[in-house]
């Protein structure tokens, strides 16, 4: 690794000052599980950065707070294990737990954060479809103040995001899930852990009070395009339909398959990945519906 400098600011202002001074050459680190490897192996992918700014000393990036009215605020550098070990979050957002508990292994989950996973911006990130399915809003701070961005607009290309060089992601806001809301993230990997998704699907549904009509739904895909993909056609296929309507779910699967624009690579072919989008979308939706009705699912 070429020489790097290290800063561990304790305030947002200090971090933004550093970012403004160093621009592209500075990178904010949360868990470091992607960043450190990139500094070592592919520094050109991150602009040959030579300043690492540790976000873990900044209070706003470590916030983890929930209320039934406001929902969940998740600081950008909160590691995965703090999410799934929090009983309230585990009970309220099982879809988020799906992602938090399968990013890397236990060691990686001791460091890696959802915010970091998002900022790394790879199409295969296991948390982003989940964030999209949950209608998450990103809080971004820069020299000009704060702005809020819908998470589906955050990634702009492979490893590219809307963050300006002098901005940083502070936190992610999850709306409080109303009764009848359920979400699920499933990915396909050839092993049972420690792999990059060949394809991944995050899905959510909002049922009406009788659990008889899908009021809203979201399906988002990982690893099958230059960015995570929100499949609007899946939403149209589902809204207004009964959660038992298998043809609606099949249509959503087909919509996901059509929306996917994968490439052939060592992890899978175009055709196989598109096929997986269909399969995983159906499975994720059915699991999300089960959760929306108050049921639990076997996550393995």
């Amino acid at each position, binding site marked *: 690794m070429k020489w790097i400098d290290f800063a561990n600011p304790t305030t947002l202002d200090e971090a933004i000052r550093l970012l403004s001074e160093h621009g592209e050459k500075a990178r904010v680190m949360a868990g470091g599980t992607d960043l*450190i490897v990139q500094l*070592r192996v592919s520094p050109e992918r991150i602009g040959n950065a030579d300043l690492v700014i540790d976000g873990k000393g900044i209070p706003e990036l470590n916030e983890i707070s929930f209320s039934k009215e406001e929902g969940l605020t998740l600081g950008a550098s909160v590691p995965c294990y703090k999410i799934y070990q929090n009983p309230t979050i585990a009970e309220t957002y099982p879809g988020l737990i799906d992602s938090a508990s399968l990013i890397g*292994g236990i060691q990686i989950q001791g460091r890696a954060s959802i915010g970091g996973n998002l900022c790394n911006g790879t199409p295969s990130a296991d948390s982003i479809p989940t964030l999209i399915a949950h209608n998450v809003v990103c809080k971004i701070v820069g020299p000009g103040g704060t702005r809020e961005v819908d998470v589906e607009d955050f990634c702009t290309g492979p490893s590219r995001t809307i963050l300006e060089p002098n901005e940083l992601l502070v936190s992610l806001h999850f709306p409080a899930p109303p009764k009848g809301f359920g979400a699920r993230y499933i990915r396909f990997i050839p092993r049972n852990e420690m792999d990059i998704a060949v394809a991944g699907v995050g899905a959510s549904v909002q049922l009406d009070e009788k659990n008889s009509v899908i009021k809203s739904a979201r399906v988002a895909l990982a690893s099958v395009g230059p960015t995570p993909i929100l499949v609007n056609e899946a939403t149209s296929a589902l809204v207004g339909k009964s959660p038992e309507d298998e043809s609606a779910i099949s249509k959503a699967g087909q919509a996901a398959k059509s929306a996917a624009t994968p490439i052939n690579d060592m992890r899978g072919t175009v055709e196989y990945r598109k096929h997986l989008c269909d399969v995983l979308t159906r499975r994720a939706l059915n699991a999300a519906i089960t959760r929306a009705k108050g049921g639990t699912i076997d996550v393995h």
Partner: protein
Amino acid sequence: MSTKTHVQTKINGETVDFLCEPRQSLLEVLRDVLQMTGSKEGCNDGNCGACTVNMDGRIVDSCLVLGVEAAGSEINTIEGVATSDGLHPIQQAFLENAALQCGICTPGFIVASKALLEAEPNPSEERIRLWLAGNLCRCTGYDKIVRAVMDAAQKMA
């Protein structure tokens, strides 16, 4: 060229001071600076777990931690698992169950298993396999490792 950073941390209960470059990982610091070579490098990208250490109560891959991040932390490594009273029950169980062949992955497995049994004294076989999925072993096929962890859990109960 920039200078090295002074870091004060706690390793296996002892206060330790060291100088390191910010680009040096915690694993490099342990091995190259402190000559604590029990933590191993198998991949240097967080996929084999041979460098597993316990940092502030959580297991992490020390190849994916910067040495400078250790400031103010409590690090526990394989070298701190046995005490003056003898081997830890997990170490004893690894020996009795022949849960190692070449032994290069063993420190990582022991540090990881210890954290599991401290958090969950009676894990199922599947839970053990999930917890240890971040640790690669190429010699044993994992069978005897999983048995050793189950055996240790029973003996520690």
